């Protein structure tokens, strides 16, 4: 809402108050503003009269003007098509600075000296969208009443400030100058002056020509008056300037008056060309009508949520939103039927959502003071009589079911003190209500009479807020609530997520955070039924992702293409999917690529590969207490994985995720990823840490190598070794693989034997070794390498 300071000043005297102070006080009572601007900021402007105007000899377009600016007569070259002798114009003299830091200097144009510039309104800084085409193309033609030497900004009412408020959704009352005046009155304790609504009436009656029937309760009030013989012309300058200041483009006196009254009162009006209407005005729901051609010349479908104003035959307006093309006020209009009405907020909202959000509809949506509707109607009559020579007909078409009496709300002093936590006195509370123009009875147990214009106040808490905001929170002293002393807690999920983040970052991975919404189709699998957004903003943010690997792969590509080749990242996040309703789980995923560890000078280089990734996954699971409970099983994997360099991860025989290389068709470079379902791990219990004594007895190292077919996995041999060595096996590791040409390979193991109660003899160890060899050779097609 753009508030013109001059406009506001008409209703409450603020002439002694600095506009910045006013804006800050408004901010302190809860009305945020975005900016404070001057309507036209140029200085050194003066009204001039063109005494002479002749064509420049060397140019078709330029004119040489002699301009009287009272103290002197200036020669000015002007390029505007409409400059002519006798015109009153705005002159920017030498030294003037126009918007855009445009400094006016003496110059020679094609040999002739020019001592200033004759200005258009655009050049004065008025927004293009608020000007008529003639004010954009040519210089501004002042009316004859402007006197040479006068300040044109003052004459044009452009000596104004505009505070652009960002109003909260509850304060529909502030979408009017009168509402603003009441708000400012609560701050400064000054009186609000209501505008003149007097007019004369001729003997013709509106009821001679029109009747009214309201068929729907979605129209709570419909008031109409007839004004005859209007003369359509330009509005007086103050009306035009105030509309411009408020961000509305002036059209002609009649249209401008309807907007002007809306700005003043917050009550949108609609003017119909009375001669284009049938006599029976009928307000009804859209059920019986198919469409309406609105004044923007668009045929719009009508539905049963639309409230329609009709003349019984055709719709003449989508109530509260837009009138019909046929009944619009035109330059030939003589007689006007003025509508001042109130419609159901929700219906106006639904209609405006499909048609157009306008100044009018946004006021209807937020609600309008029931006491202002008739006032606005009369104010429009007053202005039409005064500025459009209109003749107001007797009588009024009226349907009015609005509650108009003050709302009576009770609140006690202790309610106020307890909610605000403030030691405010009864006297201070009463002072606030009085400043707000609310009547108060029964001091202590207040009975507050709230005028209907304050649609936002309904319950005692609303009154408490009024006391708080007008009294001010500056002196509110903060204190901590008194509660039982305890430390708060994290959720189980929260703790596991925290652990996952810490372990993976300790393993050298950087955490990424990605968007939930993703493309519907991508190379990475969705594992469940998708949740799809019904109103997406774009194709690439349409579906809730189920796969963090896809996001990490995008991050990898982004970084790689920017020269960051070593990307080690992870993400922990909820994913959402359909499963008898809506379900979610927590996933953790990682991506490792490029060189994990390197020092070229020292010739150290550890490249990302399957085994490094596997190590990270194992360390991750070990640190969660799952050592010895996981296994890797090769099986069919999602097709974004390399089919022979990837594996499934199981814990306690439950599938928890995947690990492996991104399919080479997706990435030229070797990129490794893993993904683990943390929600599944969440269900597991682990044994607490129980410390055992370190064995005092020495251990014995034994190596053994078997030759097996290439297809046999090392883990298969390991199983048998473990079975035999059992409790004597302190550690087991593969230390060498050698591939022979005949399709076999040698797998060499290092084993450490020991016992916690004694020193093992060499004989015992050899015996154990032989048993192991027997077991392996018996069960697997394997031969001891030495044999």
């Amino acid at each position, binding site marked *: 809402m753009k508030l013109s300071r001059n406009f506001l000043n008409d209703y409450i005297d603020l002439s002694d108050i600095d506009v910045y102070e006013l804006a800050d006080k408004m901010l302190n009572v*809860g009305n945020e503003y975005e900016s404070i601007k001057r309507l036209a900021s140029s200085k050194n402007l003066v009204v001039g009269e063109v005494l002479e105007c002749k064509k420049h000899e060397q140019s078709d377009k330029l004119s040489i003007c002699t301009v009287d600016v009272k103290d002197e007569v200036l020669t000015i070259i002007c390029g505007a098509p409409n400059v002519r002798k006798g015109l009153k114009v705005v002159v920017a003299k030498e030294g003037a600075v126009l918007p855009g830091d445009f400094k006016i200097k003496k110059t020679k144009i094609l040999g002739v000296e020019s001592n200033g510039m004759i200005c258009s309104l655009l050049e004065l800084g008025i927004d293009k969208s608020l000007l008529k085409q003639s004010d954009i193309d040519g210089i501004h033609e002042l009316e004859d009443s402007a006197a040479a030497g006068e300040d044109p900004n003052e004459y044009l009412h452009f000596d104004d400030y505009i505070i652009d408020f960002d109003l909260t*959704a509850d304060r529909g009352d502030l979408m009017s100058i009168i509402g603003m005046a009441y708000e400012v009155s609560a701050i400064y304790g000054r009186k609000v002056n209501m505008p003149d609504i007097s007019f004369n009436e001729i003997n013709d009656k509106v009821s001679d020509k029109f009747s009214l029937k309201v068929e729907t309760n979605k129209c709570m009030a419909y008031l109409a008056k007839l004004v005859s013989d209007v003369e359509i012309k330009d509005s007086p300058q103050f009306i035009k300037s105030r509309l411009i200041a408020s961000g509305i483009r002036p059209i002609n006196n009649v249209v401008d008056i309807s907007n002007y009254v809306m700005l003043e009162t917050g009550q949108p009006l609609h003017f119909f060309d009375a001669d284009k209407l049938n006599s029976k005005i009928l307000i009804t729901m859209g059920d019986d009508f198919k469409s309406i051609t609105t004044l923007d010349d668009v045929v719009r479908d009508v539905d049963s949520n639309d409230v329609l104003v009709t003349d019984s035959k055709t719709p003449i307006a989508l109530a509260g939103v837009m009138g019909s093309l046929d009944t619009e006020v035109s330059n030939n209009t003589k007689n006007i039927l003025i509508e001042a009405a109130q419609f159901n907020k929700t219906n106006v909202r639904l209609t405006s959502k499909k048609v157009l959000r306008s100044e009018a509809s946004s006021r209807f949506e937020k609600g309008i003071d029931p006491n202002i509707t008739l006032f606005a109607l009369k104010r429009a009559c007053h202005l039409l009589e005064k500025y459009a020579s209109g003749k107001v007909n007797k009588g009024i078409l009226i349907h009015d079911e609005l509650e108009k009496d003050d709302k009576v709300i009770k609140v006690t002093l202790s309610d106020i003190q307890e909610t605000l936590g403030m030691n405010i006195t009864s006297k201070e509370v009463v002072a606030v209500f009085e400043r707000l123009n609310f009547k108060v009875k029964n001091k202590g147990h207040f009975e507050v009479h709230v005028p209907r214009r304050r649609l936002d106040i309904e319950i005692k*808490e609303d009154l408490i807020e009024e006391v708080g905001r007008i009294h001010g929170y500056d002196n509110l002293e903060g204190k901590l609530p008194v509660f039982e002393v305890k430390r708060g807690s994290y959720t189980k999920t929260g703790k596991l997520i925290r652990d996952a983040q810490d372990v993976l970052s*300790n393993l050298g991975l950087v955490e990424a955070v*990605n*968007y939930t*919404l993703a493309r519907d189709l991508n190379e990475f699998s969705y594992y469940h039924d998708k949740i799809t*957004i019904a109103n997406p903003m774009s194709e690439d943010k349409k579906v809730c992702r189920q796969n963090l690997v896809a996001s990490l792969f995008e991050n990898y590509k982004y970084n790689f293409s920017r020269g960051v080749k070593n990307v080690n990242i992870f993400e922990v996040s909820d994913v959402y999917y359909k499963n008898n309703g809506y379900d979610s789980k927590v996933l953790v995923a990682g991506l490792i690529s490029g060189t994990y560890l390197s020092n070229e000078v020292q010739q150290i280089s550890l490249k990302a590969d399957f085994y490094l990734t596997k190590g990270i996954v194992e360390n991750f699971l070990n640190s969660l207490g799952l050592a010895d409970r996981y296994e890797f099983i090769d099986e069919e994997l999602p097709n974004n994985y390399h089919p022979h360099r990837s594996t499934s991860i199981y814990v306690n025989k439950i599938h928890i995720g995947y690990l492996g290389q991104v399919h080479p068709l997706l990435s030229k470079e070797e990129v490794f990823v893993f993904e683990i379902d943390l929600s599944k791990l969440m269900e597991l219990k682990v044994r607490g840490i129980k410390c055992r004594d370190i064995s005092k007895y020495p251990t014995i190292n034994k190596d053994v190598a078997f030759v097996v077919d290439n297809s046999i996995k090392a883990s298969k041999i390991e199983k048998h070794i473990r079975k035999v060595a059992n409790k004597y096996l302190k550690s087991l590791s593969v230390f060498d693989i050698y591939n022979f040409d005949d399709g076999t390979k040698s797998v060499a193991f290092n084993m450490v034997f020991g016992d916690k109660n004694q020193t093992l003899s060499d004989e015992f160890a050899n015996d154990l070794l032989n048993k192991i060899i027997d077991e392996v050779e018996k069960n697997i097609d394997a031969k001891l390498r030495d044999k």
Partner: protein
Amino acid sequence: MKEKVVEIKQMFNEEIKSIDNIKDLNELRVKYLGKKGEIQKLSPLIKDLSNDEKKDFGKSLNETKKEVSKKIEDLLEKLESKELEKRLLDEKIDTSLPSTKLPLGFVHPLTKVRREIEEIFVSMGYDVVEGPEVEFDLYNFEKLNLPKNHPARDAQDTFYVNDEVLLRTQTSPVQVRTMEKSEGEIRIISPGKTYRRDDDDPTHSHQFMQIEGLVIGKNISLAHLKGTLEEFAKKIFGKDVKVRFRPSYFPFTEPSIEVDISCFKCKGKGCSFCSNTGFIEILGSGMVHPNVLKMSGYDPEVYKGFAFGLGIERVAMLKYGISDIRDFYTNDLRFLNQFNRKGGLEDEA
């Protein structure tokens, strides 16, 4: 005979002068002190001497032996330390060469800030609770006093899955879910992702993180909200930071408060960081609206509460001077690498 001893001594003294390594020294030792060494060679001669002479000779031979031995030991020590020095010098490396760095991982800046905020409130006795991001309209709006077609819904343009299901636009639905499950006092915070149908630009993101706070009790007031937020602001932005309350409007609170903190860059004097206002907008809050309490099973005549909603990106942007919210979600490692620090050392003033 004595002369022989003196002669050997002189010879030794002469020879040892030119010794500069342990090997030669050992040879010298053998030459003089060995079983067949020069000194030992003299001892058979003793039998030809008179008793008096025997004693005298024996004594001088012993003294010479000791002297030689000592000189050899002294030199050995010297030579050994010299050799060690040389060996160490040979092992000298260029310490200015590049190090071998294990990759240093770390959490995302949003996680960092989220944890910092969580810890502040957990230490004040708040429980951390979580709620779903795919949420019902009922919880996200209706039970927060925002019925369908309420104009205030415009401020939160929403991603809908269908008429009743949406991506939550705020963490506030967790308030409702928590109240419905609880009786009596509540002290919770609820961090998480939220979504609004805004085009992404430097100050808007269709996905962002909030932390919701909710306190319900019998005597809770706005003063408690202020006290709590003062405590929070001091811990997160520094002890000089002041909290300012500005009246505002949210459908789920009454009174509603917009909270500003004094600019921690200029200490409230006004600078470019705070657009010369001395204050920075930080969060929305207020006393829980009686309708919200009622709809969640709390009697507003008995219980009161305050709630607040804080943007994690907003805090991170202020704290670290980040100017574009999209940076959080691009995961450009050149950006993220700036957050590889722990917080053990205090920042400079």
